[in-house]
């Protein structure tokens, strides 16, 4: 198998800037057939921006996106959907005033209807309807198809969101936090679904739930400040000390001491994650050794996390110092 065949979706040095803020920085990642690739990272790491770049909702500032070996960087969103790329949204994004079935039927119609049939009535298109029902059943909604989508419970709307992405029978599925707001039971069902989906599609998953991510993903990419901090199989990522310092700190153990990590100029860090009002908050201290930053892959950038870390780009301290982390 050549490289292009192996990688259904590939990005090459993808970047996106909003004015002075670089949300996604030189991200190169690839997604193989039959692979479940999870992207994790702290809030504001650029995960959702990445999904928006991949799906075509946002144009990249630089870099390229290859879908099935073809450059789709300049293609509009709808054209990418026709090439086999479907997405779900972090915040539920459905056609709220239409019925559940109509939501999914439209998703099928978008990619499967011959244009000459456009003026036919939808009730007669049994193939479209059957496909829509199958997708709904697969996402865990086998009944209640005539309900108005907006009246569903939140968890069911999340399932509908996934059914809409599935219905198009895409090659690549981009799922932006599919578990957000789901109960544990539904979450378990979706976990099973994702595992089975990954065998036939390539799935790019964005998720906050660490236990979930480590249990289902074949590969992990950690984004911090829009850049790839680490990428590889879950066990490698789990033991990567840069990742621990940047993101996982306090996940396994409540309080984690990070080994000195000279590549990042971090002599020593102690972080812990606590449950805050809007998501995890970070507390702890980090010691920075300025003499080590030369070996840093992102030279000149010191810090754990741009929002909670002690330094922003370019502000390398000129002497060893201790910094308090804040949320």
């Amino acid at each position, binding site marked *: 198998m050549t490289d292009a065949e192996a990688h259904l979706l590939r990005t090459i040095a993808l970047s996106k800037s909003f004015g002075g803020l670089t949300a996604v920085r030189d991200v190169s990642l690839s997604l193989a057939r039959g692979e479940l690739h999870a992207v994790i990272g702290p809030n504001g790491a650029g995960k959702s921006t990445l999904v928006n770049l991949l799906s075509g909702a946002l144009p990249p500032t630089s870099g390229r996106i290859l879908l099935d070996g073809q450059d789709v960087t300049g293609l509009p969103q*709808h054209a990418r959907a026709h090439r086999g790329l*479907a997405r779900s949204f972090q915040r539920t994004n*459905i056609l709220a005033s239409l*019925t559940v079935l*109509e939501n999914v039927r439209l998703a099928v119609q978008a990619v499967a209807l011959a244009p000459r*049939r456009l*003026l036919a009535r939808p009730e007669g298109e049994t193939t479209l309807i059957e496909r829509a029902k199958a997708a709904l059943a697969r996402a865990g909604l086998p*009944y209640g198809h*005539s309900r108005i989508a907006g009246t569903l419970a939140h968890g069911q709307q999340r399932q509908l969101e996934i059914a809409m992405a599935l219905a198009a029978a895409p090659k690549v599925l981009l799922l932006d936090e599919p578990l957000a707001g789901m109960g544990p039971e539904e979450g378990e069902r979706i976990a099973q679904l994702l595992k089975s989906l990954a065998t036939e599609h390539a799935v790019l998953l964005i998720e906050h739930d660490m236990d979930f991510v480590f249990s289902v993903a074949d590969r992990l990419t950690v984004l911090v400040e829009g850049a790839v901090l680490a990428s590889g199989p879950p066990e490698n990522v789990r033991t990567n000390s840069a990742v621990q310092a940047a993101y996982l700190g306090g996940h396994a153990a409540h309080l984690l001491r990070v080994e000195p990590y000279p590549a990042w100029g971090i002599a020593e860090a102690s972080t812990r994650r606590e449950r805050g009002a809007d998501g995890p908050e970070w507390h702890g201290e980090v010691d920075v050794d300025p003499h080590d930053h030369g070996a840093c892959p992102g030279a000149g950038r010191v810090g754990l996390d741009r929002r909670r870390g002690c330094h922003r780009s370019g502000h390398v301290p000129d002497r060893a110092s201790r910094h308090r982390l804040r949320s």
Partner: protein
Amino acid sequence: MIGPARMLPHSWLGWSLIWLGFCVLAVLPYLVTPFYVGLVTTAMIAAMLAMSLQLLVGATGLVSLGHGAFYGLAAYVVYLVSPEGAAKPIWMTLPLAMAAAGLAAFIIGAISLRTKGFFFLMVTLAFGQLVYFVFHDTKLGGGTDGAYLAKPLISAFGYAFEPTSLPRSMRAWPAYYVALVQLVAMFALLAFFLRSMFGRVLEGIRVNESRMLALGFNTYAYKLAAFTIAGGLAGAAGHMWAMQSGFVNPELVGWHRSAEALLHILIGGIGTLAGPIVGAFAFIFLNEVAQQITERKLLVEGAVILAAVLMMRNGITGIRWLPNLPDTDPDASHEPREGVMQHSREPAND
């Protein structure tokens, strides 16, 4: 269940009311004086314009202030293709007027649909006024004064409906029935579109355009198609106006016409296809009544419209006469019904 097309009646009662309305219109000339025949013709033409705009406003969620341009342009086309003394048959003028209006809508829509919301409103207004000033400031159609059309007005297949050959009381009838046929045809055509999968896409765009885009719909193309169709249908209304009145002037093109059509939609109901018809009739008869009782008819109109909009957010056709019927669809049940689901495959109808 997919759900019914939102803008069409959901019950037999609604459909009965609509067909009853059309039947009343069919026999109306036998019942009223010629003055009212003319007035109802005017109302039917206004209803056609408003109904064509409803494809954008109610069905797709696009509020345009330039719709009058296509209406007026079509009326001018009738004038331009009918040199003095010799009227062209309707089977020639109508397609020409609709094609010209549709083409203009395609071009204007292609540009203005690059914007959204308020900006779309402003850009369509600007284009509408552009067309207005073309007719207002050039000698193309008689300039500011407008121009009279050649008579006879309505002819088809070699037969001319020469109004003067009819008894005085029936002179307004040909235009009336031609307008009625077009009104019914336009209603049927729009109902056909709204029920089709094309119409369902427009509905999806109205509800959540960004989602439709992510699903793979080229929403720009769908909106442009709707804009072009609506423009062409507005052309039919403008053509009929020229046929009835025998006169064109730049006021037909101006933004007042577009605003009036929007008002008709608002009064009749933004959520139904029949709304613009009801709204146009209500508005024109309100106008007539107000004129008879006072010199300040605009004041009366304004007050009634304000009251109507405040008290009936969904317009006249949005009033629910019956409580919503319970959902009778078996699929709506949440109980697992595996056996039923597997064995109740319905035989195909064909």
